[in-house]
């Protein structure tokens, strides 16, 4: 069996977000990373491969992005992915991105496809379900576990106030979130060395129009300054919450 992990290349989560003329992200000094969910998904994919007694023999990653995303892809290879695909196009809206991934992999026979719940740039929370529809396969969202159950795969899905354990025949897309694994793996020295020689296929995009367009960006208005309450007079806080903020 083969696993594919979809990877999005995003600004580091501590980035101080600024825009140029409100039109595009000011990328000066921005560190680019693998979207945190995708890093966890990749880690889980490798854990599954290692514990599968050979049942899973290949973990691949894919990203839709320009040549500037290659260091991010190489990092995924250094962490342990066996091969990578880059669809050579700037990531447009999620419809465009998911369509490109679907077209690039539709005949590749991936059994399990992992995507993150949310990318920390445009926070679309929509890629995985779109991909499932484009490929006409099941997509399961809010996934907090993918496990072996003999030769079967079971998927944990978070629901309000608990979780469901699903049996889910391959192929499927699992949209992963917290719980999928504990800590993301970091590249080892050996991983970094071998990453250079692992296959990275670059494929050209197919024709597809984005359905939405980002017109402009803005930063939130600064909150009026914090109103300080004397620690010796905690009652005042309760008064304020009741009479001024009206939240209790």
């Amino acid at each position, binding site marked *: 069996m083969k696993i594919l992990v979809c990877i999005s290349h995003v600004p580091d*989560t*501590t980035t101080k*977000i600024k*825009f140029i003329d409100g039109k595009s992200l000011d990328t000066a000094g921005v560190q680019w990373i693998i979207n*945190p969910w995708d890093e966890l998904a990749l880690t889980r994919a490798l854990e599954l491969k290692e514990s599968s007694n050979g049942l899973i023999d290949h973990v691949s990653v894919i990203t839709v992005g320009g040549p500037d995303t290659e260091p991010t892809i190489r990092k995924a290879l250094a962490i342990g992915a066996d091969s990578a695909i880059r669809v050579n196009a700037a990531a447009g*809206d*999620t*419809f465009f991105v*998911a*369509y490109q991934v679907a077209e690039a992999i539709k005949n590749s026979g991936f059994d399990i496809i992992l995507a993150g719940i949310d990318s*920390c*740039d*445009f*926070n*679309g*929370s*929509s890629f*995985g*379900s*779109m991909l499932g529809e484009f490929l006409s396969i*099941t997509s*399961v*969202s*809010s996934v907090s576990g993918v496990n072996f159950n003999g030769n079967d795969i079971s998927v944990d899905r978070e629901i*309000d*106030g*608990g*979780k*469901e*354990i*699903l*049996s*889910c025949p391959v192929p*499927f897309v699992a*949209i992963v979130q*917290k*719980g999928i694994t504990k800590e993301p793996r970091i590249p080892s020295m050996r991983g970094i060395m071998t990453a250079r020689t692992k296959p990275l296929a670059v494929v050209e995009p197919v024709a597809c129009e*984005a*359905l*939405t*367009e*980002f*017109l*402009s*960006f*803005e*930063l939130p208005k600064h*909150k009026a300054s*914090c*109103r*300080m309450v004397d*620690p010796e007079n*905690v*009652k005042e*806080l*309760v008064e*304020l919450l009741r009479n001024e*903020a009206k*939240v*209790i």
Partner: protein
Amino acid sequence: MSILIYAESREGMFKKSVFELASYAAAVAKMMNSQAIALVTGNPGQEEMKKLGNYGISKILSFYDESVKVFDSAICCQVIEAVVKKENCPLVIFQHNNTGKALAPRLSARLKAGLVTAVISLPESTKPFIVTKKVYTAKAFARVAIKTQVKILTLSQNSYMLTESKTDPAIEQFSIQLDKSQLKISVKEVQLLTGKILLTDAEIVVSGGRGMRGPENWQPIIDLAEALGAATACSRPVSDEGWRPHTEHVGQTGKIIAPNLYIACGISGAIQHMGGVGSAKVVVAINKDKDAPIFEIADYGIVGDVFKVLPELISAVKEHKAK
């Protein structure tokens, strides 16, 4: 032509956020000289369904089939697609929750209808159709245009006021022949946590960070939450250390919540933490360090020791509640 909402019910009831969604859809319908209708798949019963009429929904389509019990996005989208076609809907709106995030994108791909998720306000214009959404983990906003005829949105929780407007909605049974060959998943087991206020539903959340120093010190957080009828939450290191269950972790890599009131106790206010709670209406911070970043985003603050402040706050709240 009608604007459609997907009205999710749980155990035969709608949550308040569904009524927010209805209010929002009714307002957008007004802008588009249209009406707002709802699709209900959970079989909540006539009386509950009629409640949607209090928030401007003029017609309700009720669909029920055993196979929708196992929530599968492909199956549900068959139903929604059929309604969109039958009612000629130019706009479909979901909640931005687990269900909406599973359905809206699948429907978007199916109908080739442009989707914007996590929308926070009414469209600034409907021709062209432009809405504002959160981006960069709530650190910024973007204005986004949808270019297709049929449009899909998910609405961020707590971003639109409940607005009453009485209608007397007709309830229609809706039925279609489902292609059940698409249903591949089955539920083997359900594990429920019971008896607690759901963190993602809670209007008030009391949260503790590393400043609480250890699991043995959590009682004041629990007591304050109880006094306020609130849910409890924590920062990531707290759940990583196992001081509190993982289900309580809020932040960019945990749950994303938008309560009316968030009380942060011994939490520094790291950017990833705020990614999960930045949409709270009112933030209260209790921290002994006056320079903690949490005070930059808090509305009310107390610089002090949580172990001194919390007991006093608990008794002040109890006193207030007793009035």
